[in-house]
């Protein structure tokens, strides 16, 4: 949120990352930078939790935004800003995993305080899926999350990861099959 002592200029109170916010970021205007962060942080952080795990998601998110502000002048507007941002985020996360040779991260449970029985069952299923996700190849994990969680179409995913659309389809096949195998090995019965 913009600090209480700062008056947010016109054009920065909208809900979309528009040209005013982007121009402000290019000029290193701190209010515009914070606005861009506020408008996109949930998507970026959520993607990082799925890609690198809870423990490292905050650190990698921080790195992503520093990169965004460093490279914002390279965004030419040929693609949607969200596509450009996702691409940067995915590359940063994959590089982070490759550098540390950490293809799979340890899934950390966030224990609920109390639940009803059906809530408990839903929670078990979510837990299982998250664990299975943490075990598959990071590139497959990325594609699965972009499709199932971010609900992007194949064309958008192809642009983000810079692969042909046909390869998006074949990798999704693999991701789903491997996830199914992991779920089964964790005791899931479909």
């Amino acid at each position, binding site marked *: 949120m913009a600090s209480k002592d700062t008056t947010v200029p016109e054009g920065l109170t909208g809900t979309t990352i528009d040209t005013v916010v982007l121009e402000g970021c290019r000029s290193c205007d701190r209010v515009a930078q914070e606005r861009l962060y506020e408008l996109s942080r949930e998507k970026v952080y959520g993607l990082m939790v799925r890609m690198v795990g809870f423990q490292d998601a*905050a650190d990698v998110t921080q790195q992503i935004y520093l990169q965004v502000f460093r490279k914002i002048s390279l965004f030419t507007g040929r693609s949607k800003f969200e596509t450009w941002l996702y691409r940067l985020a995915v590359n940063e996360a994959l590089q982070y995993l490759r550098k540390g040779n950490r293809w799979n991260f340890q899934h950390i449970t966030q224990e609920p305080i109390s639940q009803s029985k059906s809530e408990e069952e839903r929670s078990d299923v979510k837990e299982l899926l998250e664990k299975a996700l943490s075990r598959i190849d990071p590139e497959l994990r990325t594609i699965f999350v972009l499709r199932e969680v971010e609900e992007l179409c194949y064309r958008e995913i192809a642009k983000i990861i810079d692969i042909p659309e046909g390869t998006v389809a074949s990798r999704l096949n693999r991701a789903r099959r491997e996830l*199914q195998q992991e779920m089964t090995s964790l005791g899931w019965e479909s």
Partner: protein
Amino acid sequence: MKCSEAQNLLSAFHDGELAKDAHSKMDDHLSKCSKCARELAEFKNLSMMSIALDKPVPPDNIWSQIEQQLDLQTQNLQPADSKVIEQKQRRSFPVTRLLSLTTALLIVMGVGWFSYNSWFVNDQHHHFTAQFGHYLDEFHRNSNAAQQILLANYESHPVEPDQAIERVGYRPAIADGLPDGYILESTHVMKMPCCTCVQSVCKRNDGSTIAIFEHDDKQSTKWFGGRTSITASCNDKQCCLIGIDDKIAASWKNGNRYITLIGVRDVAEVGQMVAWLDR
């Protein structure tokens, strides 16, 4: 529609990404094939479970940490006045002294370059053999992780097989498809120290993996370091075969280029691939 084709299209069908024709062919196949229908139901299950995944909330302190870093960067970029003054105060240097120093430096560099280059080439080769050895060891345990080793270490571009010609100047053999029982998973143009190759990862029907490298490195047996190799005739081609764990790696000349396979089951499979890729 055959099962092998339907299996490839399952995700695209589930995600509504197929053209109308292909979609109705799939519909028709799924009404008759319980195996594919069951797998589609599993895909649907995964999608339902994904809807229920939590939306993580970013911690509040991320922005303040970003701000701190941005402030630091801003400070580092601003030159102090004193530094600017120092840069302007440069002593003049006698020209002749500068010229003789430069000449001496060039001679030293020239001598150094030749000895460094020969050391560097050998060292590069050892380094590549070690890295490729790591890939081979991992391939036996986990072919996906092995692929990541290559992608992490070498510049690579994912391509459709018939688009590889734009990058390598030739149409790779894999562009004509694979024999029955094999599905193409991915193709990359990969810049390795020895050569730029077209590398394809293929799956057999049982889910096991075979990797195909097409390249112009006539010394591809050196990729395998000190492992023992034999030469055998497979479908009238002289093939170099290397045993790696319980599988075989095979290399042979195919036209003007070379094919190297990783993860082959036996000599019969080598013969099958030689025949297919040499069509």
